[in-house]
């Protein structure tokens, strides 16, 4: 099927993928599923092995070994004939179609190149951000660095009120460290969670033993005189002594491999919805992509496991000559804040209570850390938020796609529950509460 179109991909091509995270690996597998012949090489400086990045925290906490986080055994790559190389990229020459490496490993010539380099932690130019014992939590190297200084830590400060922030706080806490978590927002992660949920999550984090400081911003990090962090200073002028500072104020595309190359970048690697960059035969996938939106809206960067996987699947098809474009579909996401699980489907904007065209139904019992929310537009379901109760992805997606009314959702609510058998069912209480709110 390849090589029929003039200039189309030939099956003896060499596909080089920079980055072996979920986006890179999904791309490689999607291509291999369609093209049994071509040569595929995956390159990563971080690790020879594909591992689950969200699982880094479980290695540190002692739930998993590093090997446990690898979804495939070594034989898998041999069988799939996906070559792997551990090396850092120094330079990408798009004219010669060649990738050079920082170490002695020989350069790779490619026919097609995929940039799937993921994210790196944001640093906002805080004084002291490059001291020792200051770091983010994105990579195996970050994990190794943290492990190396763990014995020195008695008190850690984590800066940034997002998902990685709460994970890093939980990690440190699990190893017996006192943890202070600084969040700029007035309630936890309220740029993603509605006020009620954000407040509940904040309460759960505090119950977990974390000193959560809301509406608190980092000013600078103090040097102990030996180039190591010894305290943070907040914008309010408070000094918090600590032996470790975690910077988790979000992530941004990791473009270090592209330095000096002719591949156009903005915040990320600029791509169309088929994941083509503006350079022929160069593509990108995952966190490092910045979609150029034709309508002149704000460009989109997606930094989730799930979107990385979707990008990889689309790109695999594109690379094999199929027409495919990224479509995020109905939004979904999940997380765990200490022991509180979160599932979200569709649109649940943080401002939901104050958005005039949205109606919302919200349930939160007094005696348990649980919450359930439906969001409707013009009486039709557009979003579901569940905290502490598991809800089915495909069922919620169908409800949203079909635009069910509140009443129709309430009739079907038990179908959506995904909690284990014998768990207490909250649907009767939720339905009662929602019927009252609807009246």
């Amino acid at each position: 099927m390849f090589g029929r179109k003039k200039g189309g991909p030939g099956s003896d091509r060499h596909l080089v993928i920079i980055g072996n995270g979920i986006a890179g690996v999904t791309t490689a597998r999607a291509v291999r599923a369609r093209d049994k012949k071509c040569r595929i090489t995956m390159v990563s400086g971080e690790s020879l092995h594909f591992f689950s990045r969200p699982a880094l925290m479980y290695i540190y906490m002692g739930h998993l070994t590093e090997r446990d986080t690898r979804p495939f055994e070594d034989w898998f790559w041999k069988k799939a004939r996906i070559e792997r190389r551990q090396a850092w990229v120094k330079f990408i020459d798009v004219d010669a179609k060649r990738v050079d490496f920082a170490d002695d490993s020989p350069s790779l010539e490619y026919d097609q190149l995929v940039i799937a380099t993921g994210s790196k932690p944001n640093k906002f130019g805080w004084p002291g951000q490059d001291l020792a014992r200051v770091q983010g939590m994105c990579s195996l190297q970050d994990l190794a660095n943290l492990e190396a200084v763990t014995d020195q830590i008695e008190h850690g400060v984590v800066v940034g009120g997002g998902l990685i922030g709460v994970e890093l706080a939980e990690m440190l806490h699990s190893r017996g460290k006192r943890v202070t978590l600084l969040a700029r927002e007035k309630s936890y992660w309220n740029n993603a969670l509605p006020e009620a949920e954000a407040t509940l999550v904040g309460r759960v984090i505090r119950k977990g033993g974390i000193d959560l400081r809301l509406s608190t911003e980092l000013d600078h990090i103090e040097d102990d005189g030996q180039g190591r962090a010894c305290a943070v200073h907040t914008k309010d002028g408070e000094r918090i002594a600590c032996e470790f500072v975690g910077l988790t104020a979000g992530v941004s595309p990791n473009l270090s491999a592209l330095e000096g190359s002719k591949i156009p970048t903005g915040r990320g690697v600029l791509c169309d919805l088929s994941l083509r960059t503006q350079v022929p035969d160069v593509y990108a996938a995952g966190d490092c992509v910045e979609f150029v939106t034709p309508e002149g809206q704000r460009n989109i960067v997606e930094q989730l496991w799930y979107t990385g996987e979707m990008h990889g699947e689309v790109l695999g098809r594109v690379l094999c000559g199929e027409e495919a474009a990224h479509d995020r579909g109905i939004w979904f996401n999940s997380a765990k804040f200490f022991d509180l699980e979160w599932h979200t489907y569709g649109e649940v904007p943080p401002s939901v209570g104050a958005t005039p065209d949205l109606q919302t139904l919200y349930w939160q019992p007094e005696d348990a850390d649980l919450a359930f929310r439906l969001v409707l537009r013009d009486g039709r379901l557009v979003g579901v938020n569940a905290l502490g109760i598991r809800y089915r992805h495909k069922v919620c997606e169908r409800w949203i796609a079909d635009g069910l009314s509140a009443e129709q959702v309430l009739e079907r609510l038990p179908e959506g529950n995904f909690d284990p058998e014998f768990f207490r069912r909250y649907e009767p209480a939720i339905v009662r509460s929602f019927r009252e709110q609807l009246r």
Partner: protein
Amino acid sequence: MSVTLTGPAPSPHAGSAGLRTAFAVATGVSLLPFALALAGHPVGSGWVALAITFAPFTLFAMLYIWATYRGTHPGIKNDDITRGHFTGRRTAGILLGVVLTGLYTVLYFEGEWLRSVYVLLDPLSHLLRDRPADQWFLYGFLYTLAVLIMGARMFWRYRHNRYQMWRTASVMFFQLGFAFLLPAFLLAMQQPEFYFTYFWPLKPDYLFPSYWSYLWSQPGGVGAFMLVFGVAASFILTPILTFYFGKRWYCSWVCGCGGLAETAGDPFRHLSSKKYAAWRFERWSIHSVLVIITALTIWLWVGEGEAVQTGKKWYGYAVGMVLSGIVGVGFYPLLGSRVWCRFFCPMAAILGIFQRFFSRFRITTNGDQCMACGNCSAYCEMGIDVRAYAMQGKNIVRASCVGCGICSAVCPRGVLKLENGKTHADRYDGAQNPLATLLRSLKNP
């Protein structure tokens, strides 16, 4: 019993570190009378000696567990397991394996060595069975004690998870009631020591002609009832319950081997091998044992003579002692808690065939929410690579799954759920025609 000492490094999730250490030491010290008895010097005889030997370590072990979970928030408690002295394949774990393997070897092959220990149980044995204790009574007693103590641990550990609580209550109930008290009571009543929770082929005697004639010869019809129950359990009860609930109704709710694995074995569940090679070995080994015991049973019915008796004896040694006991339990700290159930148990093999082809049970996956962390696979005691299915959004329909529900419990994204569907036919491609799928799988093992 030092299983109860299994403890990770101090963690703030775990109750009070000082109390834990104190109770761990106290548990260790209170094992002294037991050790003395093993060395041939029981502390005395009668109820007092029995209490001095067995009550303190039970009490301190329970206090240790209480101190571990006291004040913790209900939720998953897996901190430091990969680094734990007993749980991380470190020296303590290996020593524990050596001790357990040694105890099983002595029990099976030199049971009289344990006389100085089991005589301590004489008062209890007389009360329950109207006869003196022997090594098997000692074994049953310690086994039940382990299930109860570590079952209590499960209650604290998984108090946020009702599936785990009910399941643990069930294995504790069946071990205490049906595998310890009832057989003892039957003996006291001059009836056969029958275990209503073990069936052929796990308990192969129950379909052996010699055992049938023994049961048949019992006065009062109790033996005949047992005979009929044994047949019905293997050929009627098992297929029906497995069709509706999967093999879990037995393996992680009723069975004694499963009961020990799910309680005393819980700290070791992550040590099972997840390698594809282990799965391949498992499929050959477990079905081989099933074929052997089936052939042996038929042979015993149709044939006579020394050869078949020798076969029966060797099956008893190799499978009944070495594989189920010495390896099955002794290797907990090295290969996880289900070595016997996964690789060798012929009952699990039959239940597995039903579960794989003729059952409504499956573990469902929640859409695309999996992010491949690997907690499900790591904590699967049967070594199933659960994640491989979850990543693809596929149902998990595997012969070996005992339905313990831990994958669902440890999943941080709420992706897995054990379910009995409304039909068997919607679980995977080919499930509509189970017989054809079964035959196809035999052609391409």
